């Protein structure tokens, strides 16, 4: 009954994201807030709808409820469709038994039925922890033009950093002849971005073969791609230019937010022709009092600013009281920085309270031991008491008593 779709996207929302520990205690990594109004998943989802993809499966088994409620009917991303839309796909019991997802390839394999409902010619595989804007339609055109079985988006990285990535070695026409996972001596600087387009018929075959292979780790990068390359399937590298950042660690998440304050960074959120959509509660415009000072920062609806905000990103509904200082930091939705508190080089997660006169984080230049310095993180719903001190690099997931 359903019309055939040219392509659909499957988004690997991944597991707990343990490197973001305090931020992902109760939610999947793609639901982590980013950039004042967004959550990480808004970027691939908005890219999908802007690229003309109207069906997206989101694969997750870790705390899917927050994602489920965030995505809801898909309306904020215009993915509220009669035929298609956005679906959260957790593992389920079948009459033949039940399984948690055991790898990225296995997660797709377990949802072959979902994919086949739409009878797509191509399937786009995305992951849920990258910040970037990309027209996948151009990548699909490239895939078709090259007659590829699999197209992998690649980014040119500085050669000296290439050993941190999965590197694609390709002929000048784009055809890949070799992968190297974090090679000590990289032969090229084309790093995989974890974005693949597969011709579905081929992909289906390799997914089934992989599922039957007891030695496979059921992983795209480790199993599916090498198997295809081995079989001389046509695999090509699609060069991407522009801003792309993996936000899987505290440092990279902090950096990516700070990048928004840097006019030289090529991630334009103001471009009306490629909007990033999100679901946010409706709040009045933010209020800035006569006592406030704000410089080089982003401030969002529902905030009330009486203190000083400098080089920081404040999400919706944040309160900065009189005399408080927020500097080089990220304050996520609904958190309150009380009078006289100082927040520096920190990430304050949602609905937390930094008590009067408390100190969270520190500038690197003020740190006694630079090796022990790092971004301080205060988790969701955490209360830092009056006058308490949260040192740099802390990962706070519980309340801290005040100091009288």
């Amino acid at each position: 009954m359903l019309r055939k779709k040219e392509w659909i996207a499957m988004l690997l929302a991944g597991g707990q994201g343990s490197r973001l520990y305090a931020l992902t205690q109760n939610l999947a990594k793609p639901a982590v807030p980013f950039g004042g109004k967004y959550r990480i998943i808004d970027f691939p989802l908005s890219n999908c709808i802007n690229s003309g993809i109207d069906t997206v499966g989101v694969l997750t088994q870790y705390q899917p409820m927050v994602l489920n409620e965030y995505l809801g009917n898909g309306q904020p991303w215009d993915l509220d469709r009669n035929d298609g839309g956005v679906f959260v796909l957790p593992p389920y019991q079948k009459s033949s038994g039940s399984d948690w997802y055991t790898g990225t390839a296995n997660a797709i394999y377990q949802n072959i039925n979902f994919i086949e409902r739409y009878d797509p010619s191509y399937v786009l595989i995305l992951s849920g922890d990258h910040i970037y804007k990309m027209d996948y339609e151009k990548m699909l055109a490239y895939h078709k033009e090259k007659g590829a079985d699999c197209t992998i988006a690649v980014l040119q990285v500085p050669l000296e950093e290439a050993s941190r990535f999965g590197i694609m070695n390709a002929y000048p026409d784009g055809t890949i002849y070799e992968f190297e996972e974090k090679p000590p001596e990289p032969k090229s600087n084309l790093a995989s971005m974890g974005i693949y387009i597969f011709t579905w018929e081929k992909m289906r075959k390799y997914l089934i073969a992989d599922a039957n292979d007891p030695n496979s780790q059921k992983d795209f990068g480790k199993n599916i791609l090498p198997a295809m390359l081995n079989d001389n399937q046509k695999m090509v590298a699609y060069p991407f230019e522009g801003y792309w950042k993996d936000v899987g660690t505290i440092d990279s998440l902090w950096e990516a937010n700070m990048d928004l304050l840097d006019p030289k960074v090529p991630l334009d959120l103001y471009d009306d022709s490629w909007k990033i959509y999100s679901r946010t509660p409706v709040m009045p415009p933010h209020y800035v009092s006569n006592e406030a000072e704000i410089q080089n920062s982003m401030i969002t609806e529902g905030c009330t600013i009486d203190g000083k905000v400098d080089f920081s990103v404040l999400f919706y509904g944040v309160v900065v009281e009189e005399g408080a200082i927020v500097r080089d930091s990220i304050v996520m939705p609904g958190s309150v920085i009380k009078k006289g508190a100082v927040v520096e080089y920190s990430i304050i997660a949602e609905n937390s309270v930094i008590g009067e006169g408390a100190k969270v984080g520190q500038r690197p230049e003020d740190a006694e031991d630079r090796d022990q310095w790092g971004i301080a993180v205060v988790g969701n719903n955490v209360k830092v008491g009056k006058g308490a001190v949260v040192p740099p690099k802390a990962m706070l997931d519980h309340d801290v008593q005040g100091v009288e």
Partner: protein
Amino acid sequence: MRENKVMGIIFSDMHDSALGALTENRTTASVPFGGRYRLIDFTLSNMVNSDISDIGIITKSNYQSLMDHVGAGRPWDLARKRGGLAIIPPFASHGGLGIYRGRLEALAGALSYIRHNDAKYVMISDSDVIANVDLRDMVKQHIASNAQMTLLYKTITVGPDLKGEDLTLMTLDEETGDVKDIARYASAKGQQNLYLNVLLIEKTLLERMINDAMSHDQYSMVRHCIQPAVGRMTVKGYAFEGYATKIENMNSYFAAHMDLLKPEVRTELFPKDRPVFTKVRDQVSVRYGLSSKVGNSLIADGCIINGEVYNSIIFRGAKIGKDAVVRNCIIMQNTYVGDNAHLEYVISDKDVLIKDSRTLVGYETHPIYISKGDTI
């Protein structure tokens, strides 16, 4: 099937003439307000937050901007399969002239819409009042008091609160709360009960009154429906105690914005459990540059602030240039204020371009209005 169900009717354009230039290309209901809202958002949200989910908006003309704003009603959760939001266009049921002389006549055009609903009560409202009212309490009082009509009012002191220009005022029996008199007064003074043009009435009674009015060529809600009922039916007043202001003209429009800068007004207008919904525009957070200075202002998302802003309301997507100074202004959506420009007491409508180094200075009682799309 739902007991004591209430449906809503909103007049979108009863005050178009009073608002002058603001309603040249839009209805009263779609006049921008408060940085990101339109006037009707307050009435719509009050109804929705009070469990009224079948709402008809009566329009006359100029309603394209209103339709753009409300769409299918999604932001208010009124995009329903059953009920939800309905736009009732002028040609709906009667002659086809598309004009009406008063609210009662306008209701005649909505009669079939009203008749087909299974509600027991109808809440009828204008769209020119800025207030956050829990209408459930009004419905409760209406039912408990066995009233046939209940009128929402606020006790004000004419003079400081309102200028007393042509207000509909009510006299109430202090003991029973019955309305003893309701009439328009051009020059009232002192403490008065101002009718906020929100009426709750039983649906069958309303239908009968509309039919009567059509037979007798009557058209005015107050004159032909409420006034004759006073004394003959149980007409009660429901007092609203919170912040409420009517947008009557450009001056009260300006004053209402200045009220928004008071924290106690914002607390009353935007409580967390009764949000004011509006159309989502997916704007980015406000970007403050290195040289920005802001005091006592409300700034909506999507703005870029590089200059100085004081005692002002800046709507979505406006840009304030470097070393520009904006003081006591209302700067609407997508207005661009150039570098070094200097604005005081200015109301700039949408999409205005103020070039670099321009100076415009009005006075509190005479703010300068710049029309939509103009370049200065």
